[in-house]
Structures are given as C-alpha cells and as structure tokens.
C-alpha cells in the first residue's frame, strides 16, 4: 500500500461538514489561500483520522480546512481557504 492509497476525496468529508453546514458542501467551489487554485470540494484530498479531518488542496497540498472533533464540539480551521462558493437550490 502506498501513502497515496491512504487519502480519500472530498466526498468523504461530506458527513462531518454536513453536520456543521446546513447547505450541501461537497459541490461547493473552494479557492486555496495558498496557491489560488479553484476546485470542487468533492475533488479535494481528504485525510480522515479518529482525531479529525484535514481537507487538502490537490494542487499544492496545503490544508484548506481542518476539522477536529471533541465532546459536544467541533473546531473548524478555515485559514487555508480564501473563498467558499456555495450553491443553494430554491
């Protein structure tokens, strides 16, 4: 198994983010604060462990979103995201 097999994609972050956001987030367009790359959240690289979830830019590898969870709370770090464009259906 290579390290490449360890990560998932943004689809896998839909559950934890769906518990935080009321709108569908995996189809959101996300802009990396590091390299400026635009992409769909479902197409990012996701590293999920028991401690939390890290969503990385497939272009430069920087962390776009970090989510850690503890008892009755989430810590959400968006410092790697410049812009999140969310689509809503009427």
């Amino acid at each position, binding site marked *: 198994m290579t390290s*490449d097999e360890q990560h998932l994609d943004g*689809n896998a972050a839909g*559950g934890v983010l*769906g*518990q935080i956001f*009321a709108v569908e987030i995996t189809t959101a367009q996300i802009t990396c604060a590091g390299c400026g790359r635009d992409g769909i959240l*479902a*197409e990012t690289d996701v590293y999920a462990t028991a401690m939390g979830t890290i969503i990385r830019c497939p272009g430069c590898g920087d962390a776009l979103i970090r989510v850690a969870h503890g008892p009755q709370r989430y810590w959400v770090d968006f410092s790697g995201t410049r812009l999140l464009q969310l689509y809503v*259906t009427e």
Partner: protein
Amino acid sequence: MERTALPGRLTWKLGRVVAIIDETPRAKSLVLDVPGWAGHIAGQHVDVRLTAEDGYQAERSYSIASPPQDRNLVLTVERLDDGEVSPYLTDGLQHGDQLELRGPIGGYFTWRVADGGPLLLVAGGSGIVPLMAMIRQRAAHQSTVPTRLLFSSRDIDDVIYRQELEQLAAADPALTVVHTLTRAQPPGWTGYRRRIDRAMLAEVAWPPSAQPRAFVCGPTSLVETVASALVELGHEPQRVKTERFGPSGGTI
C-alpha cells in the same frame, strides 16, 4: 422518495437491521429500516458510527446500494480484514441490531433519471455500490438512457451483484455490462483479464463525441488511472465524476 429541498444539517439516526444478504464471500448487504429517513439520491453515501464500551468511536463511509424509491436503506459492505469497522458490520451485526448512521451525504457523485446520459459507469470492487443504486434507479424508472458499466473485480466469486447485473443487462438492450477479472478467471472466460487501462476504456467507453456522464468509483489507484485516461481520450474533466474509497487490502 426523491426530494429536492434543502436537507438541512445532518444528524445521527438509528437504523435497524431487517435483513442481511450475502453478496460475495467478502461482501454483505445490510438492509436497514431507518425511521425518519428523508430519502436520498442514487450515488450518495452514509457515515456509520460504531461506539465501543469504553466510548471509543470509529466512523466510516458506506455507499447506499438501494435506489431512492425503496422502502429500506441498503448498504453493501466489503470486509477489510484489518478494518476497524467493516469486520463488525459483515460478521458481528445481526438481524434486529441497531446501527448509528448519518446521511444521506453528497451532492456531487449523484445521478437522477432526469439528468440523462449516456452513462459511463466504471467500478472497482465495492466501488460498484453507488453505481448500482444508479442502475437500479434507472431500471425502476424504465429509463432508456444508454448505459455502459465497466466493472473490475479480482475473480468471478468476488463480483458483487453478478446475477442481478446479468439479469438487468439481458432484459435491457440499452444496458451493457463488461467485466474484467484481474486475478483469476474461470475456465472459458473470454472477457478482460487485466486492470482497467486506457486501451480498455477506448474499447468500452462511449466516444467523447457522445458526451457521456462518467462516474468512476473504486480504490484511489483505479480512480486516478481511469479519470486521467478518460481525459486523455478526450472526455471533458467536468463530465468525469469520481469517488474513491480507502485501502482495499489489495489491488483490483
């Protein structure tokens, strides 16, 4: 039923196991009754959460195999021998047990009948599960959307939903199912016997001019190979949707 309204925030729900179906020696389908389930779209998944007696929790994502119109929610789970969650789901779970789940999740890797086609579905191993929800949904609506499935499995006994796929394809000229068996083939096998590559896709896939909607699901290596090969063959990247799952315990 299909809903288009905003689902709101996801919460954990309890499902009860009403049946367990053996699909292959390593894969089982869990048929769940989930009170308050608001419906889903073919291609979506759920997160399953297990809690140990000491409070330790583990979560994993599993694709929904059942089409939206079914009364029960069906998850097909493949056992990973060193897995933390799947061995319990395939071997420990019993009829009547309850399971914590969160979903439905995902608006990207989804297909509705109204989205049309043609459909190009490419699966590796249990990557067939969300694609099967699409195939079942298509069949339930008697949709004639031309559909091709290229399905990679290790050997013939490992092919999930083999009989159902055979029956659906035999009854429907617009549905073509092509298998490749990468590790072992039964006597007289005339199909593919290698991992999916660009040459195989060039033979099986719709030409780019047909503008198919492609859905690719499987282990990371398969998904990356297939997605890049489709783009090299001239398919628009936006029409190639991918979903990868974690370590599969071997190559497919």
